[in-house]
């Protein structure tokens, strides 16, 4: 064994019973097999050039996990500042939008029909608050009236009143709403129909407000 050519790294003591290296768990002196590269930068580029000479895109797409997960302090600050700026602008936009909507004022009070125009269990159509929003007025009993917009809360199809089944029916996707309250009872819609607040003045029925509901 002594005649064997020595390993180029120098002689290695193969005896595993030397003090401190008993058994097969011995470790090399730290300076002999010390890693030649930084643990964070173990990848060597294919052209073996140092990292400083590599193209810039290598920094953006590192192969090493530690580098991939590393976030520079400057990048983190940039992210924080831009995100806060986005939130601030969003708040300003919401405020401006609210101010604009309030400036529009309340919807007009419109006379829909006379009580005598609607039979019990029947429905008539009207538009409110403007001519582009069709609504339905339903007479439930002699004194009970309800009104909802005709827009299904699923995908805005026009709902059809079905007083015999005590429901509004959306033919697009088999959606159903309760005739009395407008809450969804079947099909894809999750939100109730938008309610039109009514006011009785004598025998006339007036629409006075729009009540958007989410649940």
């Amino acid at each position, binding site marked *: 064994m002594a005649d064997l050519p020595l390993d180029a790294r120098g002689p290695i003591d193969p005896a595993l019973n030397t003090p401190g290296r008993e058994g097969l768990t011995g470790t090399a002196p730290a300076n002999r097999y010390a*890693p030649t590269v930084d643990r964070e930068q173990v990848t060597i580029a294919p052209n073996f050039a140092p990292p400083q000479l590599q193209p810039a895109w290598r920094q953006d797409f590192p192969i090493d996990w530690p580098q991939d997960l590393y976030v520079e302090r400057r990048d983190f600050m940039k992210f924080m500042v831009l995100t806060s700026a986005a939130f601030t602008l969003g708040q300003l936009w919401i405020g401006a939008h609210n101010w604009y909507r309030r400036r529009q004022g309340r919807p007009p009070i419109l006379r829909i029909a006379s009580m005598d125009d609607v039979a019990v269990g029947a429905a008539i159509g009207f538009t409110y608050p403007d001519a582009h929003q069709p609504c339905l007025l339903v007479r439930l009993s002699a004194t009970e009236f309800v009104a909802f917009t005709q827009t299904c809360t699923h995908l805005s199809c026009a709902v059809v009143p079905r007083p015999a089944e005590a429901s509004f029916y959306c033919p697009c996707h088999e959606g159903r709403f309760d005739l009395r309250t407008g809450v969804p009872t079947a099909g894809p819609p999750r939100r109730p129909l938008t309610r039109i607040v009514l006011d009785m003045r004598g025998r006339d029925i007036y629409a006075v407000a729009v009540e958007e509901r989410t649940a």
Partner: protein
Amino acid sequence: MPKPDDLHFFIDPNRCIGCQACVQACTECDTHRGESMIHLEYVDRPQSVQTVPVICMHCEQPTCAEVCPADAIKRTGDGVVQSALQPRCIACGNCVMACPFGVPELYEDRRIMMKCDMCYDRSSVGKKPMCATVCPSQALFFGTREQIDALRPLSAPINSFRFGAQTITTQVFLMVPRALTTRDSYLDVAAAMDEQPQNRGISLKVLPGDPFAEVEV
């Protein structure tokens, strides 16, 4: 927890007896769901039963990661090239084409590339990879440099490989005859492909000299 720096993987193809124990052991692991990440390569099947176990060599210049268009193949700080990250892998198969050692495998049904990761769940806590624990002839050996030097006085570990113009250094070592090695020895894999190996032998083209010298293509 990283793989200990003093533990290395050593492949000794001359000791491989083709028993497929490593393949079975790898298949049983649940981290890759019954697929084997190791396979045995027949050197010259009509003439010889000699096999070579193929595991990921964990290159210092991982070609699979270099060619990955989705940035999905990453290497941990201890130099272990991991399987493709599942949210990123687009199952394009570039790594399968590019790997000079033929390690990555594409699983079309799962749309993911999976490869040997040196049993990272085991090696990162100081245990041996499963194939190295079951290999009956220690063709696959995981341990310290002292251990392999004591066990194989006639062989020396080598980790420089040249494929044509491409030179690759790896974390996994291949055992070659010690008499042939010098400090700058490298293995010319492409040259070994041209030669007809002797019966029952493995032709290891160990060349002296600077592995990183320019070669004419």
